[in-house]
């Protein structure tokens, strides 16, 4: 996957579509504010998705909340 910036007009169209898909009522004046942020975040999220799609990372599983399974215990420095 190549990194591609998402253009503002494209994002505004996507915002309208995604709002409809999510059943989220959205007045027209909201679209610009959402698009300004979403455009940047989608670009970065797509870069991250590309990184995580690398074959070398295929075995990496998601963290979904319970992180406390690894206890490295006490650190022994200075004793």
């Amino acid at each position, binding site marked *: 996957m190549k990194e591609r910036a998402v253009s503002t007009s494209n994002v505004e169209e996507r915002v309208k579509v995604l709002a409809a898909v999510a059943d989220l009522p959205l007045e027209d004046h909201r679209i610009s504010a959402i698009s300004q942020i979403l455009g940047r975040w989608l670009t970065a999220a797509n870069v991250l998705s590309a990184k995580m799609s690398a074959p070398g990372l295929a075995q990496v599983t998601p963290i979904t909340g319970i992180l406390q399974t690894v*206890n*490295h215990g006490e650190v022994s420095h*200075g004793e």
Partner: protein
Amino acid sequence: MASDLTGLSIAAAAKLIRRGEVSPSELLDASLKEIERHNSTLRAFISVSEESARKAASAAELMLSAGYDLGPLHGIPLGIKDNIGIKGERTTAGSKILEDWRPDRDATVITRLKQAGALFVGKTNMHEYAWGGTSANPHYGHVRNPWDTSKFPAGSSGGSGVAVAAGLCCGALGTDTGGSIRLPSAINGVVGLRPTYGRVSNTGIVPLAWTMDTAGPMARTVEDCALMFNAIAGPDPTDPATASVPVDNYLSRLSTGVKGLRIGVVPSYFFTHLQADVKRAVEHALKTFEELGAHIVEVDIKHIEGNISAQLTIESAEPSAYHQRSLRERPADFGDDVRTLLEVGEMLLATHYIQAQRYRTLLRNEFLEAFKSVDVFICPTLPFTATALGATTVVIENGVEEDMLSAIMQFTGVASLTGLPALSVPCGFDSGGLPVGMQIIGAPFTESHLFSVGHAFQCATDFHTRRPDLRVA
């Protein structure tokens, strides 16, 4: 007298109470006077709980006179971030939607602080629903920085940071998802701990992002944070995300020192793209640690780039799920910025969210590997000092304006994503006299170790002893 008492650390106040030289009611009076004097300017508190706090102070005195001493928090006035529920007390989470909510039970952290004898002087102001880093609150007023009231206090636990820095209370509780304890701690010149994820119960706290939310102490000294943490840390059967790992006595290692300590630094990420004064202060702190016998070890974290995107994706998708109903039924009751972020969170794809969660595993594994060769990491808490109140952008270098939200979590996102504990400690001031903070990041469940490192620094420096001049606030 009021200022003298509210300037005390928790440890110092506790000693005076034990010796009978000051009573919990006198300490509370001092706190209430300072709140009355400064809160209209600083807007650190949304609600002040004078009546219930006075009752609790009287009860604390009765217990002491009868020989029941609950420990170092007995009779100490604390501020509580307003997303943490106290039974019967107004708990707004900084929102209009919850403006009249009075929980019917205490959050677990409140139950534990009550068992330790603490008093709650009021509920501190915050970024609405904790979803933002400025504490610019459209419903309860923008929290102001006591060091310069034209500046922001960071957030989202801005009220807690300001209340502690300004001496309105002895300590406070905050919550930290993407940096919300550490950021206002650094910007206001106090100490704050983001615990290991799962070390402190979130039951009874209005969530932001379930998989990253934590609650922790904010105080003027590392020792005070350890005292508070002793009370709140530990498993909770009502919060399945809490860990069954045994708790420490978090004071037991406080004076261990740092001789032989291996401090990891990641120059390619944590020491690039930050204001010169911040870099200078943290580098000077590292020299101080070296003089105390620690060693600096340069470490490469291969996949550290990408953490901001992962954080923003998770931290927007999860609150958007939590607030989904309110966003449809009462959208106009959200502040503009939070409403926009919640709307954005509905428009990221499930694959973006899952890839971000997979990235967390990758980043966490790299840090756990690195902890085989270092004991802690040290880095700036954030790349800039306090910026203008209400600003939505910030200039870090070369005059370029950057989006505040992405910029402010540049260095705090790592601990949030990995679940590692991180302690923010004051480490200097910029040329304008505004505080700079550094993060000490540790391996999972090594909070007592972080306290020992932070305490060693505070024994060697005096940054934490300097207070804002409230005559001009």
